[in-house]
């Protein structure tokens, strides 16, 4: 575990650089203080693939936010004069069985997939990290209980847990967020617990306790930041997995329901037209694949930049 400092810490490297008048004076070394953030960025910059993935995801986020202005057609308005058309200048990705523009639907679908991904992983991450820090800090029976439950949850494939939650809450995209959040909890709990265990014996934590700092404050201010680097890496990777799981749930009919332009639901819709109009399944499939791939590649790059020791090569 590298000595971790919150990624949000202000970078002193930018602070002292008050102007170009630094010159080759002895003080120049001060301009080169290596902050963890600066070091991270220096390494991350070299990960070309991850940079491209990150840029793509940023573009996708913009498109999702501004979908109503970017999309050439309304995603829900049918046009029965133009059903199941192939790609053309008017309809880049063709039209579906109701004559709706597939490209516009994919752009609107990006909103759903990104929202489900971010929300579910944030929810699961928040719960998991809190449990993990508490578990690692207090130890004892609290620790055993939380970790036992996590072990059981981890042993299940995500989709089965999600289906269990859906079976109780009922199908629908809102419930998919909770369903997918559940299986992110144990991973984040383990990560946070690991870093908490290694940090709670640090001198500064002992010192904080000695001067009477409250447990809650120690956990929030001194232990939580240590877990953040790993949490960020997994955050990116889990979003990819969550988007994939949510799309799977919609595909099997337990997530977003048909008129919704959710990518998995669009694929389920297009199933009946395989061989007749392949564009209806081809383009939403590409959208899911490329988005999930980008999150995974970004996660790989973040991991390598945060901790070169973990690097596979």
């Amino acid at each position, binding site marked *: 575990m590298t000595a971790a400092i919150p990624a949000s810490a202000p970078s002193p490297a930018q602070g002292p650089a008050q102007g170009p008048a630094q010159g080759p004076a002895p003080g120049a070394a001060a301009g080169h203080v290596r902050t963890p953030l600066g070091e991270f960025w220096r390494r991350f910059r070299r990960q070309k693939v991850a940079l491209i993935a990150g840029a793509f995801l940023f573009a996708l986020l913009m498109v999702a936010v501004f979908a109503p202005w970017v999309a050439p057609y309304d995603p829900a308005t049918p046009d029965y004069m133009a059903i199941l058309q192939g790609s053309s200048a008017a309809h880049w990705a063709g039209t579906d069985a109701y004559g709706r523009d597939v490209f516009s639907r994919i752009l609107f679908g990006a909103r759903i997939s990104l929202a489900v991904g971010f929300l579910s992983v944030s929810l699961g991450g928040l719960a998991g990290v809190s449990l993990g820090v508490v578990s690692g800090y207090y130890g004892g029976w609290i620790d055993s209980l939380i970790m036992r439950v996590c072990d*059981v949850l981890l*042993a*299940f*494939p*995500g*989709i*089965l847990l999600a*289906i*269990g939650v*859906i*079976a*109780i809450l009922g*199908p629908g995209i809102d419930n998919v967020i909770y369903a997918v959040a559940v299986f992110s909890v144990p991973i984040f709990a383990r990560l946070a617990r690991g870093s908490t265990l290694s940090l709670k014996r640090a001198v500064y934590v002992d010192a904080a306790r000695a001067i009477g700092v409250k447990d809650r404050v120690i956990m929030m201010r001194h232990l939580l930041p240590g877990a953040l680097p790993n949490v960020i890496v997994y955050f990116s990777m889990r979003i*990819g997995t969550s988007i*994939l799981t949510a*799309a*799977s749930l919609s*595909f*099997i*009919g*337990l997530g977003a329901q048909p008129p919704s332009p959710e990518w*998995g639901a669009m*694929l389920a819709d*297009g*199933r009946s037209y*395989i*061989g007749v109009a*392949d564009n209806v*399944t081809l383009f*939403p*499939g590409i959208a*899911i*694949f490329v988005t*999930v*791939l980008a999150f*995974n*590649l970004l996660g*790989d790059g973040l991991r390598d930049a945060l901790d070169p020791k973990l690097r*596979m*090569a």
Partner: protein
Amino acid sequence: MLEYLAKRLLGIIPVIFAISVVVFAFVHLLPGDPARLVAGLDASQEDVAAVRQSLGLEGPLWQQYLRFAGNAVQGDFGISLKTRRPVLTEIGERLMPTVWLTVFAMLWATVFGLLIGVLSAVKRGRWQDYGGMIVAVSGISFPSFWLGLLLIDLFSVRLGWLPTGGYGTWAHFVMPSFTLGLGVAAVMARFTRSAFVEIAREDYVRTARAKGVPEAFVIWKHTLRNALVPVITMTGLQFGFLLGGSIVVETVFSWPGLGRLLVDSVSYRDYPVIQAEILLFSLEFIFINLAVDVLYAFANPEIRYK
């Protein structure tokens, strides 16, 4: 070894108890009165009472649980609300198709995952490595249901070589098992590569090379055999995840297995079947994990004596 096995077997008893409670509580977690939910909004008072009895929802909770657990131990999970047949019969018919599907998927995924992983590790930094890892990271990101649809489009609709779905001959197995195994093959390839690379850094591998052992021998005897230990664990765990993946793949290929039964039951609110399936899946995962741990302990004495 026997002592370790006994300890592990005893250890899963509380887990099974916890899962049985969760599965039992499942019906009670539903918002509203489950009997009313099942019988329908316009059902008469008598109908609701009849459904309540058939779901075993009478009497105090602890009595309900004892009845549920007692019946479950004897293989009685009640009657399917959809087909009106015993749940055990429904599940029994669907079990083998799912088992065979996962076994075939696991077989090809292990073989190809190992091959790609070892090739990538041996040719580290060269095009084989980059090629292998591109395939692997793509395989992890590929939606299995989309892959299934693409295969159906190509091999069934266009070429007419393979059936679009269903169960019966070997031809029915080709596309579903390929689709199901791809993600696992990708995970195996990545994992094998990193395990292999790690072992290749060990002193004894360098020593072997230094004393002039032929390269092929270094790879097979010194590196691969040691790298396989963590890979075996991984294989076992992936088995559980294949069972989860089968839920989606069975839907794509109209496969008459447990996964599709589960999806249908959730859509139909066939609670007795859902309960039995969740219990069955959970038990499968527990025993697969147990088998993995025992195998691992067998391979690595350090764990046994801890």
